[in-house]
């Protein structure tokens, strides 16, 4: 957390000592400090009720806060006038879990709505809407009624609407929670594409670890309105602090006896056959307790829990160190 404070000057969203409560003594958000850098995909992760959607809404003034500071593009959100808030919102697109589209407007009119709110000329609106629909791959559905679209298509329209005013930041509130796994992936790819191609900062609120793994550079773990972990997403997943562990790992039943070692495969090593190499070089036997490989953004990373004999432990550790493996002893099985 200290590292992010040091980068305060470059941050696009800077949160300091943020506190929010609905009634005194019952904090919803408590003592939050972190920074979101321009151009990154930042994940805010937690169980439902952890306060993550509330935190997201503090960024564009849909929620107020009682203590601390939220600076978005240099502007303190809590002190902005009504006009100032509107100007800020113009630069912050937002998409929602249940899409929040207007059922009586067709696809075109839903995407055009923000442009009409800001009184753009009709010709420019037409052009921009078609451009946006093209971006989300639904240009041929412009005149379709919202209720005739699938969930994934609705969220694409939501994204097109959020992008209408050329925002600098895209806020995503559980944007894929109502979608099936395949649709989730295609929506995440679209968000990633928007982030990479247009350089737009994306803030993702989610309880789905899949989402974080797929698109987030860094993440903040929130529990009961408090920050539990903050850092690079893959690092947090590969060697999770205790607070994150129950989020990311199923419990493996450890083998009694011997030493259980959790090996982490960072990106450089994941393709190489480190484990079989170790077995051949050290001439030892080991048991596999469990493990998993996951796709993080563009890499395949993972961990493996193995059980070795006490007698081999020192050799194994030396080998792992020599090969720059990350590891930890889960328990002394004895």
């Amino acid at each position, binding site marked *: 957390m200290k590292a992010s404070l040091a980068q305060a000057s470059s941050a696009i969203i800077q949160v300091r000592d943020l506190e929010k409560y609905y009634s005194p003594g019952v904090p919803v958000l408590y003592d939050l400090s972190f920074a979101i850098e321009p151009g990154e995909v930042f994940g805010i992760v937690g169980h439902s009720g952890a306060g993550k959607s509330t935190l997201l809404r503090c960024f*564009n003034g*849909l929620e107020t806060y009682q203590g601390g500071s939220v600076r978005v593009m240099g502007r303190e959100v809590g002190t902005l006038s009504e006009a100032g*808030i*509107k*100007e800020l*919102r*113009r630069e*912050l*697109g*937002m998409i*929602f879990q*249940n899409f*929040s*589209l*207007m*059922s*009586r*407007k067709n696809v075109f009119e839903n995407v055009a*709505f*923000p442009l*009409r*709110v*800001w009184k753009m000329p009709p010709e420019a609106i037409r052009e921009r809407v078609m451009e946006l629909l093209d971006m989300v791959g639904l240009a041929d559905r412009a005149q379709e009624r919202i209720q005739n679209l699938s969930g994934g298509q609705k969220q694409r329209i939501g994204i097109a*609407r*959020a992008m*209408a*005013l050329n925002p600098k930041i895209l*806020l995503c509130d559980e944007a894929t929670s109502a979608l099936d796994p395949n649709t989730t992936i295609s929506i995440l790819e679209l968000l990633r594409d928007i982030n990479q191609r247009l350089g737009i900062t994306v803030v993702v609120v989610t309880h789905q670890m899949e989402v974080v793994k797929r698109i987030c550079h860094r993440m903040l773990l929130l529990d009961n309105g408090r920050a539990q972990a903050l850092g690079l997403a893959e690092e947090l997943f590969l060697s999770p602090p205790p607070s994150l562990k129950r989020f990311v790992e199923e419990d493996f039943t450890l083998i009694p006896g011997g030493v259980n070692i959790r090996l982490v495969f960072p990106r450089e090593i994941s393709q190489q056959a480190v484990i079989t190499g170790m077995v051949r070089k050290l001439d030892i036997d080991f048991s596999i307790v469990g493990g998993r490989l996951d796709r993080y953004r563009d890499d395949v990373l993972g961990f493996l829990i193995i059980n070795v004999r006490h007698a081999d432990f020192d050799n194994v550790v030396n080998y792992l160190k020599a090969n720059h493996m990350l590891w930890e002893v889960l328990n002394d099985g004895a």
Partner: protein
Amino acid sequence: MARELLKATLETLYMVGLSTFFSMVIGFGIAVVLIITGPRGLRPNAPVYRVLDVVVNLLRSFPFIILMIALIPLTSLLVGTPIGSTAAMVPLTVAAAPFMARLIEGSLLEVDPDVVEAARSFGASDAQIIFRVLLKEALPAIILNTAVLAIALIGYSAMAGAIGGGGLGAFAYNYGYLRFKTDMMLYAVILLIVIVQGVQSLGNYLYRKLR
């Protein structure tokens, strides 16, 4: 006699049509204030909301026949006379506006609050939210509720007929009840049934079309 029946029909349509229109306008205004100042509104304001809430309930609890008589001074002031179809529109509107306000408030409350939040998220003003989101999304329900109100007003207008408002209600009363011309009364009742059916069908049609 047919001409008198026609005249009475037109009087009913005139009274009900215009009172429906006026109560829609006034009711919409009240409903918007209720929605804005309500507990979950855009600008919650408990004192304004409570006062308006009580006034609406108060007006709605008056029996129409009493309201009609109580409003005679106001009617004379506005129309110049307390008698006739035009005069009858004053108590009809006063009785119907709070009713309409409640119906419209209910329709507006049905609009998904997430959609309102989305509109706020890209910078829509309160006025834009009221007219372009709430009213737009609630329009089919408001139209269906207007049909309910218009039909209630047809019933009220028959009562207004009793104190000189004219219309089919008065026709049925004068010819059928006072002069024992059962056939005349029957014609008037049949016409009322046709009008009620017509209004409801029109409401349903517009609802389906707009939805």
